[in-house]
C-alpha cells in the first residue's frame, strides 16, 4: 500500500479528486445543483496548473456530453459531471456516446426530477439512464466516490468493455457531507490506472475513420447493439478483476453488491447509495434486539449482478426492496430488477416493494420498523402486498397544514 493522506472531503470534492487522480485530460462542463462544486473544483485545478489539459464550459448538458464523447472518440481521457434535469437534458447523447464505445466517466449527483422541481435526491434521474449503455456504479460514501471513479476508468478502458460509466452519488446527503477520505498519491493512482491509449477510436490524418456512422437494416443495427450488451456483461468479470487489484494496492474492497450483516439474516433490506447508511443503522438497531435482519446494498447497477444478488439473498424468508425512485404506474425500479434476478431461484424469498426517500424525504426509524413488520407479516401469511408508499403521520400532519395554507384539501 502506498502513502495515502486523509482529508475531510465532501462527496463532490471526492469526485473532483477522482478525476484529478485519474488524470482526466478534458472536462466539458455545465453547472447544475448539486453537482456544481465538482466542476468548480476542477476549473480551479485546471486554471492553476494542478491538472493538465482543458476545462471548457459548454452551452448545455446536451452539448457537454457530445463534446465529452467526441473528445474521447479522438483519444483523450474525459471526465464530466451533471445532475437530474441535466442528465435528462443530455439523454439522447447518453445512448449516442455509449454506441461510440468511448470509455468516459460521468459523475451524476442524484437529484429528484421535476415536476415539482426540487433539489434533494432520489434516483429517478440516474435510473432513467439505466438502458443507455453506460455502466453504473452507485456510491454510499465519499471514499467510495473517489475510489469508484478510479476503478470506473480502468473498467471502461478495458478492451473487453469500452463503454462509458456513470458514477452516482446522492445530492446533499453525500455531495455536501464531509467524510474522512484517504487520497491515494498521484504515483499510486498512476500505477493503478495507466494512460488512456485507444486503438479503436481516434481521428488522425493518416488513418481516416468514420465513427458513429448510420446503419440501415435491423440485422446491422442489432449486431452493434448486441456488441454493447456483450461488452456490458464482460464488465462483471472486469469489475471484479479491477476491484481485486484496487484492494491489493489501496486496501479497500468493493464488490458489485455489498452484504451487510446478511449471512444469518432472515429478513433483508435492499437499498443503494447514501441512504443505505440509514438502512445499516436500522439493521444495527434490529440486531441489538435480536432480530435477524441484514441489508444488501446494490452498487453495480449496470451490468446488473444477477448472481451476486441471488447469492446474497438466498435462503432469506422475506426481502424488502426500498426504492428511492418511482416508476409511475409500476412501483420501484430496482424491485423489478431484483425480482428478475431471483425468479429462477429454486426457493425464492418473498419480495416486497417499498418506496421511500423521494426528493430527499427522510426514511425514519419508524418507517424501517414498518418495513420489517411488512416483511414479517408477509412471511407469516404468505401474502405480499403491492408497492408500499412510505409516509409518516408527522409528515402527513405537516403536509395537511401546507395544503390548508394553499387552500387545498388532503387527497
Amino acid at each position: 500500500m502506498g502513502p495515502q493522506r486523509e482529508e475531510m472531503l465532501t462527496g463532490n470534492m471526492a469526485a473532483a479528486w477522482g478525476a484529478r487522480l485519474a488524470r482526466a485530460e478534458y472536462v466539458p462542463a455545465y453547472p447544475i445543483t448539486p453537482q456544481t462544486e465538482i466542476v468548480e473544483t476542477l476549473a480551479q485545478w485546471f486554471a492553476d496548473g494542478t491538472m493538465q489539459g482543458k476545462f471548457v464550459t459548454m452551452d448545455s448538458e446536451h452539448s457537454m456530453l457530445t463534446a465529452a464523447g467526441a473528445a474521447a472518440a479522438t483519444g483523450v481521457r474525459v471526465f464530466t459531471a451533471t445532475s437530474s434535469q441535466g442528465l435528462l437534458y443530455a439523454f439522447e447523447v447518453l445512448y449516442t456516446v455509449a454506441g461510440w464505445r468511448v470509455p468516459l466517466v460521468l459523475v451524476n449527483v442524484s437529484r429528484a426530477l421535476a415536476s415539482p422541481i426540487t433539489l434533494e435526491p432520489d434516483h429517478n434521474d440516474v435510473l432513467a439512464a439505466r438502458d443507455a449503455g453506460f455502466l453504473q456504479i452507485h456510491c454510499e460514501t465519499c471514499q467510495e466516490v473517489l475510489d469508484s471513479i478510479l476503478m470506473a476508468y480502468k473498467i471502461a478502458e478495458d478492451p473487453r468493455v469500452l463503454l462509458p460509466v456513470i458514477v452516482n452519488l446522492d445530492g446533499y446527503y453525500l455531495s455536501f457531507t464531509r467524510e474522512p477520505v484517504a487520497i491515494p498519491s498521484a504515483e499510486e493512482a498512476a500505477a493503478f490506472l495507466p494512460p488512456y491509449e485507444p486503438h479503436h477510436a481516434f481521428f488522425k490524418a493518416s488513418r481516416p475513420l468514420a465513427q458513429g456512422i448510420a446503419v440501415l437494416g435491423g440485422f446491422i443495427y442489432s449486431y452493434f447493439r448486441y456488441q454493447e450488451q456483450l461488452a456490458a456483461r464482460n464488465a462483471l468479470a472486469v469489475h471484479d478483476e479491477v476491484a481485486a487489484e484496487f484492494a491489493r494496492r489501496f486496501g479497500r474492497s468493493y464488490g458489485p453488491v455489498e452484504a451487510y450483516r446478511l449471512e444469518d439474516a432472515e429478513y433483508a433490506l435492499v437499498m443503494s447509495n447514501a441512504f443505505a447508511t440509514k438502512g445499516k443503522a436500522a439493521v444495527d438497531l434490529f440486531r441489538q434486539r435480536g432480530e435477524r435482519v441484514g441489508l444488501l446494498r446494490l452498487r453495480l447497477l449496470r451490468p446488473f449482478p444477477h448472481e451476486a444478488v441471488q447469492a446474497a439473498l438466498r435462503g432469506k424468508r422475506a426481502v424488502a426492496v426500498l426504492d428511492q425512485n418511482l416508476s409511475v404506474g409500476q412501483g420501484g425500479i430496482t424491485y423489478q430488477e431484483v425480482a428478475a434476478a431471483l425468479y429462477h431461484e429454486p426457493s425464492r424469498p418473498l419480495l416486497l416493494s417499498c418506496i421511500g426517500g423521494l426528493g430527499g424525504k427522510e426514511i425514519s426509524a419508524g418507517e424501517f420498523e414498518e418495513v420489517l413488520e411488512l416483511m414479517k407479516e408477509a412471511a407469516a401469511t404468505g401474502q405480499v402486498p403491492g408497492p408500499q408508499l412510505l409516509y409518516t403521520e408527522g409528515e402527513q400532519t405537516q403536509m395537511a397544514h401546507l395544503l390548508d395554507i394553499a387552500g387545498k384539501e388532503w387527497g
Partner: protein
Amino acid sequence: MAIEHAYKKLKEISLEEFILPGTSTCGGCGGLEALRLAHKVLGKNVVFVNAAGCFTLLALFPFSPFKGSWLYTTMASAPAGAQGIRDALDLLIARGALSIEEDLQVIVLAGDGASYDIGLASTSGAIYRNLDFWYFCYDNEAYGNTGVQMSSATPYAARTTTTPAAVLTPEGTELPKKDLFEIWRAHCPPYLATVSPRHPLDLARKFEKAKAFKGPKLFIAYSPCPTGWHYDPGQTPEIARLAVETGLWALKEAVHGEVAHTYIPKKLKSVEEYLQAQGRFAHLFHPVRQEAALRKIREAITQYWAPYLRTMQNAK
C-alpha cells in the same frame, strides 16, 4: 497565411475528388455539389462532424464516400462534437501524442433544420467560444430528409408538407426565412459567408480566404433541392443562377462582422421567373395569381438590396 489560389479561373479548381460518386443523395442535389466544391479547396485532411439531415445517409455502414473522417453526433449538437474533437486534437498534439501532420480541419456538416432550428444554441456556444472550426450548412430551405417539412429556413410562400397551400393558408409558408447570416454575424466570427454551387469561383475564393482565420469559419450554402422544390434535377444550376440573379440569394461575406457582397447583380431579374420554375411556388400562379403574396416577395427583395444598390451607384 498567404492565399495559395486566387481562383480567377475554373481550371484553378482542383480536379481531385474528395467525395466519391455513388452516394444516396437525390439526383441534382445542390448541397452535395456545393460541398464537393468546398472540399476541393479544403483538401483531404478533414473530419466532418455531422448533424441529422440528408447528408447523414452519405456515410452508411460499411461505406463512406468521403476520403476524410466522419463522426455522426446528434441533430442538435454537432458543433459541440466539433468542440470535443478540436480540443482533443489540440491536447494530443500539445503533449506530443499526435504529430502536427496528423492534424485535421474540423467541419460541422448540417442542414438548415439543424442549423436554423434545433442546433442553433450549440452553434451559438461554439462561435461564442471562438472554436477553430468550419461550419457548412447545406440550406435546402426545409426538413428535406424527413420529407420536406417547413423549417425556419423555408422562405415565405413556399409550400411544404407542413405548410400546405390551402383555403386558410393560400400562400403556404406564412413566415419569412430566418436570417441565420445575421444571427451568426452578431457573434462576430472571423469569417462568415454565403455560397452557391452555381458560383464555383466565388465559393472557392471564400473557402480559400477563410483558411487565413483561426476561429469559426461559417458557410451557408444555397442548396437547390429538386425533390423538395419540385423541379427537374437537371435544372439545379439554372435554379441556383436565378436565385442569385433575382436577388433572393445574396452572395456575401462578413470578415469580423464587416459585410461585403461578393456579387451584386447589375439588374435584378424578375423573381417570378425563379418562382415559376419550382412546384413549391406553383400555388402562387395557379389556379389564380396571388398578387399580394407576389408583391410581398418583390418588396422584400427590393428592401434588402436598396442600401447596397445605392452604395454601388454612389461608388460609380
